[in-house]
C-alpha cells in the first residue's frame, strides 16, 4: 500500500507543475462566478492540449490510456497551483463509451474529450426529477430523422453546448423504463430554445432549460439501441456520483487552500467558531482526496464502479457542504465584504440533489450494499 508517486507518476506531476507555471488562467471558482463559465472552454482545450485532461481514457478517443490514479495527480496539482478544476464531463464520456457503437464513439468522443465540442445532458424534466423514468419528452421517427418535443430542465452548460445528450421516449407503448432512447442532438437549430436558469447564488451560466419543439435529429445520432436510453442514463448517473469523474476533490482543495491563506493572513479577525468550521473543511476535503486515491487504486484490479458510487456521492456531498459552511462562516455576511463565501455555500446545496438526491443514494445503499428489504 503506497500513497506516494511511482517514478512515472512523479514525472507526470513535475511536467504538470511546470506547465501550470505558465498556463494557469487564474479563473475564479467555478461555483461562484459566470466568469469561470465564460473561460471554461478555453481552459478545457488548453489543459487537453497540454496533455493533462482525459489522460486516463483510451487512446482511441483522444486519451492516453493511463491508469485512473493519474487523475488524482491532476486534481492535486491544479488545486496546489490555484488553477481551476478539471472540466466535469467524465460521466458523459463513460456513458457513450459503454453504450455507443464503435462508429458513435469515433464520431463523438474525441471532440468531447479534447474540448472542441461542448455537450450538455438533457435528462431531467419539470415532472421527472428523482423519478427520471417518467420523462415525457418524445422522439417520433419521420423518415430517417426523429422529431423531438419536450422540456428539459436543470441542464448544466446548455447555453454553451453544441450538443445535447437527450433522453426521449421512442416507444409510448412500452413499459416506463423500456421505451426510452438516447440521442446526440445538435443544439443549433430552430426547434430548440435554450433559456438560462439562474441558480440560488445568482450565477446564470451553469443551469439552463431547453425546450424542444419539433427539433430534428438524424436516426444515426441515436446512442445505443432503441430502448437502451434508460440503461445509458443509469451508466451516466452512476458515474456522475463519483468525485473522480467530476474532479471535485480538486475544487474543494482549492477552496480550502484559499480560505486557509485568508485566515492565516489575519487570524485575529476570526473567532473560534469560524476557525473550527474551517478545520472541518480541511478534514473533509483531505478525506475525499485520500478516499479517491483508494477508489482509483481499486480500479487497478479492473474492478469497475458499482453501488459503492452512492457511498462516494454522499462523502462528496458532505465534503462540499462542509466546505460551503466554512466559506459562509469565514466569509461572513458583512455587506462591505465580497460575497464569494455566501455564493460557495449556496452553490453547495445543489450537491445533495444533483446526480441523484442524498435520499436516493441512501435508498440505493440500503438496497444494494446492506441488502435491507425494500420498503
Amino acid at each position, binding site marked *: 500500500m503506497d500513497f506516494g508517486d511511482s517514478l512515472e507518476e512523479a514525472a507526470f506531476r513535475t511536467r504538470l507543475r511546470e506547465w501550470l507555471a505558465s498556463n494557469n488562467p487564474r479563473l475564479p471558482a467555478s461555483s461562484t462566478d459566470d466568469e469561470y463559465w465564460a473561460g471554461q472552454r478555453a481552459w478545457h482545450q488548453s489543459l487537453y492540449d497540454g496533455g493533462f485532461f482525459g489522460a486516463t481514457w483510451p487512446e482511441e478517443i483522444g486519451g492516453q490510456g493511463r491508469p485512473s490514479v493519474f487523475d488524482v495527480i491532476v486534481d492535486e496539482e491544479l488545486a496546489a497551483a490555484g488553477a481551476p478544476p478539471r472540466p466535469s464531463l467524465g460521466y458523459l464520456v463513460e456513458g457513450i463509451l459503454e453504450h455507443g457503437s464503435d462508429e458513435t464513439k469515433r464520431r463523438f468522443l474525441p471532440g468531447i474529450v479534447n474540448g472542441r465540442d461542448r455537450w450538455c445532458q438533457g435528462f431531467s424534466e419539470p415532472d421527472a426529477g428523482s423519478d427520471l423514468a417518467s420523462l415525457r419528452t418524445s422522439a417520433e421517427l419521420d423518415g430517417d430523422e426523429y422529431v423531438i418535443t419536450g422540456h428539459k430542465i436543470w441542464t448544466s452548460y446548455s447555453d454553451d453546448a453544441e450538443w445535447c445528450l437527450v433522453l426521449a421516449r421512442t416507444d409510448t407503448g412500452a413499459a416506463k423504463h423500456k421505451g426510452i432512447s438516447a440521442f446526440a442532438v445538435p443544439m443549433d437549430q430552430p426547434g430548440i430554445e435554450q433559456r438560462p436558469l439562474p441558480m440560488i447564488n445568482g450565477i446564470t451560466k451553469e443551469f439552463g432549460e431547453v425546450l424542444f419543439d419539433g427539433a430534428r435529429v438524424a436516426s444515426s445520432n441515436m446512442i445505443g439501441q432503441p430502448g437502451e436510453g434508460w440503461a445509458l442514463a443509469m451508466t451516466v448517473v452512476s458515474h456522475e456520483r463519483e468525485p473522480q469523474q467530476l474532479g471535485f476533490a480538486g475544487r474543494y482543495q482549492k477552496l480550502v487552500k484559499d480560505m486557509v491563506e485568508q485566515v492565516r493572513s489575519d487570524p485575529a479577525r476570526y473567532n473560534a467558531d469560524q476557525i473550527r468550521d474551517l478545520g472541518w473543511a480541511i478534514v473533509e476535503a483531505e478525506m475525499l482526496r485520500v478516499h479517491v486515491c483508494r477508489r482509483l487504486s481499486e480500479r*487497478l484490479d479492473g474492478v469497475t464502479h458499482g453501488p459503492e458510487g452512492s457511498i462516494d456521492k454522499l462523502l462528496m456531498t458532505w465534503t462540499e457542504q462542509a466546505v460551503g459552511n466554512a466559506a459562509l462562516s469565514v466569509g461572513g455576511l458583512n455587506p462591505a465584504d465580497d460575497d464569494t463565501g455566501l455564493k460557495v455555500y449556496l452553490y453547495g446545496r445543489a450537491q445533495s440533489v444533483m446526480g441523484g438526491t442524498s435520499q436516493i443514494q441512501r435508498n440505493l445503499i440500503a438496497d444494494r450494499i446492506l441488502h435491507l428489504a425494500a420498503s
Partner: protein
Amino acid sequence: MDVRLSPVQEALRESVSLVVDRLGPRTVRQLDDLERAEKLEAAVVASGWRDLRVPEVDGAPLASGVEAAIVAEELGHGLADAPFLGPTLAAELRRLASAPAATAGETVVLAPSLSEFAVAVGGLQDGSVAIDAQGAESALVLVARENNDAFVLASVPVASVAVGVDLTRPSAVVGSASPVAVIDQQGRALSSDDRATCAALGLALTCADLVGIMRGAVELATGYASSRQQFGRSVGSFQAVQHLLADALVLMEGSRSVARHAAWAVDALDPEEALGAAARAKAYCARAARTVCETSIQVHGGVGNTWECLAHVHLRRALLSSEVLGGVGVNMGRVLAHYGIGATDGLR
C-alpha cells in the same frame, strides 16, 4: 500510487480476523469467560503482532504502520479483549530510544487528559493512566530534559488494573506515588520528532481500531434490523431505519480511507506531516465512530439499551479509543496548527 493492501497485508488481515472470530467475545457474557480471554491473549502473543514495531538491526521497525493498523482494525472489529495498542506503543518508544526490549508485559502512560503521553516532571501527575494494561507489569513515561525538547524513557510499575469505560481494555491509574525509574539507554534521548512519530502511530492505531469498531457496529445493527419484526415486517424495511444505517456505512468508509492514509504516513512521511495526517484522521474517525455506535444503539431500540446487547460494548470501546492521544477537539487543534492557524499543543 497504489493504496490497495498487498497480498501479504491481505493475508495478515485474514489471519487476525480468523483468530478474533474464534477467540474474541461474541456476546457480552463471554467477556467474563477468562479461559477464552487467556486463549486469545496467548494467540496474540504467539502471533508476534505485538512485536511489529520492534527494531530490526538497522533500527527500522519490523513492519510499517500499515501492518500494525491492519492488526488494530481487526482486533477492534472483533472487540478483542487482549492488549495490543499499549504494548505496541511501548515497543515503539523503546525502538525510538534504542532501549533494550521489555522483559515483561509493558504499556504506556498517558496524561490525565488521555490526549498525550505522560511527561514526568519530578514525578507523575496524579490521575495519569496506564492504558490497555491487562497483564502489564510496567508502563513507560517520558522524563523531560532541558527545555522539553528532549526526553528520556522511564517506567513506572502497574498494579490494580481495572475495567473502566471500555469493557474490553482495562487500565490502571498511576500518579505522584508511582516510583519513576529511568531506563538504561545507550545515550539516545527522544526528540520531539520521535514523540511526534510515536503519537502519529498511536493516533493511526486508534483510528484503525475505531474503523474496526464501526464495521462491527454496522454489521450488528444491520443484522438486527433485518431480523427484528414490527408492524408485521422487518424494521430494516423502513426507509427511516435504512437511512440511519446507510449514513453509518458511509461514515465508516470515509473513516477507513483516512485511517489507511494515516497508517501509511507514519513511516512514509516526515514526523510533522505524519502527525498532521494522523490528526486529520483522528478528528474524522472519532466524530464518525460516536455517531455510528449511537446509531447502532438506536436501531436496536429497547434491546440496545440493555447491558446484554453488544451495541454498548462497541460504543464504550469507541469512547476510549477516541480519547486516547486526543479526541475530536484536541486533534482539530493539531490540524489547524499544522496549517499555521492557532497555537501548537505539547506534541510539537
